[in-house]
């Protein structure tokens, strides 16, 4: 009431206010508009959700539909005779026996060609002999890994109606495959090698186990470095550090660090760990250290938030009965903050687990066909393996790529499940 003639302050009677018309048309229209707006808002929310769910479903569908075949492989049945003279012909001892030549001969005799079996098919014979040395001199039917071409045909990836020059397999191979089918000597089996071998140049022999072990070793190094340092940093900043300009700057820096692109950390790791400290290239140790640098700010931030959410009344209570600062932190603050810290840590580590760029820079993109046995041995990790396979020209690697993505997703999902489990287990109710 800025109107100077308004009498409100002077105690004179106020002008009568017209009663609100709740049933007027204008009012009804306003109400209808309000409801319409509400409905529209809800519809947009639902539409966003459906769209997101659709993308996710599409992604999962394409990965799984390509990938499940990566867990299968074609196998060919061969009658093998373990002739001792032939096995030891070259090396002279059974320990270094030459199964390759033996298998080649048997293949040629039975199929007229070696091309139906994989180059690494002889590995199966060695396994059999190791399992059962009594087989020496005997003959048995062994299912060995088929060649990539047979693999493709067995999985129905080859359109036989196309002319030969537009097919990946030539007519001769198709004939061989038809013979195999007729004599029932080809089958699709679970690809156990995929989960137990390391990388290989031939797709039918390539496995994801080496990369998985590499990932686990790398993550263990990351955790061992970043968890204690991150939690101690957060505890110091929250519980001990005075609140002043310096701690403000530190806080801003940590937040900025969490947003730095990961490839920068890769360059840092390259410069510091490889060039300055001379650590081994391609090793999980260096990968883990590099990822620890990247994960550290995430853990510090998560731990600080978790520590801040501890009710001050608990600290007061502990101080009130005469607990020292260390006792307050270790007996009361950390146990209450633990679920939050663990959740943040696992989220940070999950991100590190899926990280590729910084690891490429420190040499973890090398072709590694051995399963790493320690943190200083050359290794690769799952996402880098996926990256490498997606670059391969061999047709068999397409399904391997998707299958490796499935393994990576399974690892990530189980880590997130672990985070939820830990949070529920340690969460206390107030």
């Amino acid at each position: 009431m800025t109107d100077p003639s308004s009498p409100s302050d002077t105690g004179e009677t106020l002008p009568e206010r017209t009663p609100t018309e709740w049933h007027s048309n204008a009012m009804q229209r306003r109400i209808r508009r309000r409801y319409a707006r509400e409905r529209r808002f809800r519809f947009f929310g639902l539409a966003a959700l459906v769209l997101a769910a659709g993308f996710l479903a599409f992604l999962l569908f394409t990965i799984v539909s390509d990938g499940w075949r990566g867990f299968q492989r074609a196998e060919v049945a061969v009658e093998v005779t373990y002739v001792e003279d032939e096995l030891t012909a070259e090396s002279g001892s059974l320990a270094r026996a030459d199964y390759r030549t033996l298998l080649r001969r048997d293949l040629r005799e039975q199929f007229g060609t070696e091309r139906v079996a994989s180059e690494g098919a002889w590995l199966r014979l060695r396994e059999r002999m190791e399992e059962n040395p009594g087989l020496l001199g005997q003959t048995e039917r062994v299912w060995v890994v088929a060649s990539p071409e047979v693999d493709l045909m067995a999985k129905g990836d080859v359109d036989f109606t196309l002319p030969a020059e537009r097919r990946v397999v030539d007519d001769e191979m198709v004939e061989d495959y038809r013979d195999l089918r007729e004599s029932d000597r080809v089958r699709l089996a679970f690809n156990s090698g995929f989960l137990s071998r390391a990388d290989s140049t031939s797709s039918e022999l390539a496995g994801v186990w080496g990369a998985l072990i590499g990932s686990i070793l790398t993550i263990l190094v990351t955790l061992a470095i970043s968890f204690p340092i991150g939690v101690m940093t957060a505890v110091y900043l929250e519980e001990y550090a005075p609140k002043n300009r310096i701690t403000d700057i530190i806080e801003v820096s940590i937040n900025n660090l969490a947003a730095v692109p990961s490839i920068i950390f890769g360059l840092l790791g390259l410069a510091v760990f490889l060039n300055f400290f001379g650590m081994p290239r391609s090793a999980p140790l260096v990968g883990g250290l590099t990822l620890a640098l990247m994960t550290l700010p995430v853990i510090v931030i998560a731990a600080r938030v978790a520590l801040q959410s501890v009710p001050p009344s608990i600290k007061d209570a502990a101080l009130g009965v005469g607990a020292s600062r260390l006792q307050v932190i270790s007996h009361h603050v950390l146990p209450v903050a633990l679920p939050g810290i663990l959740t943040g840590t696992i989220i940070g580590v999950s991100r590190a687990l899926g990280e590729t760029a910084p690891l490429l820079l420190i040499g973890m993109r090398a072709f590694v066909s051995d399963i790493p046995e320690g943190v200083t041995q050359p290794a690769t990790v799952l996402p880098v393996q996926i990256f490498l396979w997606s670059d391969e020209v061999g047709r068999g690697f397409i399904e391997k790529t998707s299958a490796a993505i499935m393994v990576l997703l399974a690892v990530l999902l189980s880590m997130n499940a672990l985070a939820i489990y830990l949070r529920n287990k340690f969460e206390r109710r107030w």
Partner: protein
Amino acid sequence: MAEYDTETVVHEEMTLRNDAKMTARDVSVFYGQKQAVRSVSIDVDSHYVTAFIGPSGCGKSTFLRCFNRMNDTIDIARVEGDIDLDGRDIYDPKMDVVQLRARVGMVFQKPNPFPKSIYENIAYGPRIHGLAESKTDMDRIVETSLQRAGLWNEVKDRLDESGTALSGGQQQRLCIARAIAVDPEVILMDEPCSALDPIATAKVEELIDELQGRYAIVIVTHNMQQAARVSQRTAFFHLGHLVEYGPTDEIFTNPKADRTRDYITGRFG
């Protein structure tokens, strides 16, 4: 508001002695630039319940927290003046704060049991101070503390349950039992009943009555009836000043300072 005298009126019986359990002399507390407590001197005797009353923001809680140095945990708080426990300056750098807080226990405004079992709530203090030699010793401390807090019969069958599962009033008595368990000499209570319903409040007040004599008790309250019911001595604070300090019945029936009279008769507050 009318201009009031800032002189403290101390009743004859309360004349400051230096052999009281706890003595405060010219204590001022600053929060940054703001002065919350202005040069307060007071004695706290064993055997009595001393009540600090006054309107919100008068500095009574802040002053109370000086007695066990809880203000240390606030970065910007600064305490001036002397507070002695049995004649020893508690702000002496050589004073062990951990031991001080064991000797001067505290009960807070909101019941704040640890999110642990009832047993653990009580046993925590004695354990960190090494007061129990054995498990049976500890069981005995837990039992007597809960008995003194009048909670034993209600919880003896569920000592393993979480302390946070108790009702608000029970939680507050659990907190009192927790303070008793370390065998303190002084118990500070910061508005212990403000979060409780009338029945729970009555129980806590009853408990304070029973504890009187065994421990020196200082209770901060904004409920004047409560001060009248549970305390023998009352100190009235206003705007950081100690206005009047005397026997409770005299403060309530025959206050000497104008401000006390105005507050008690409901003229402000």
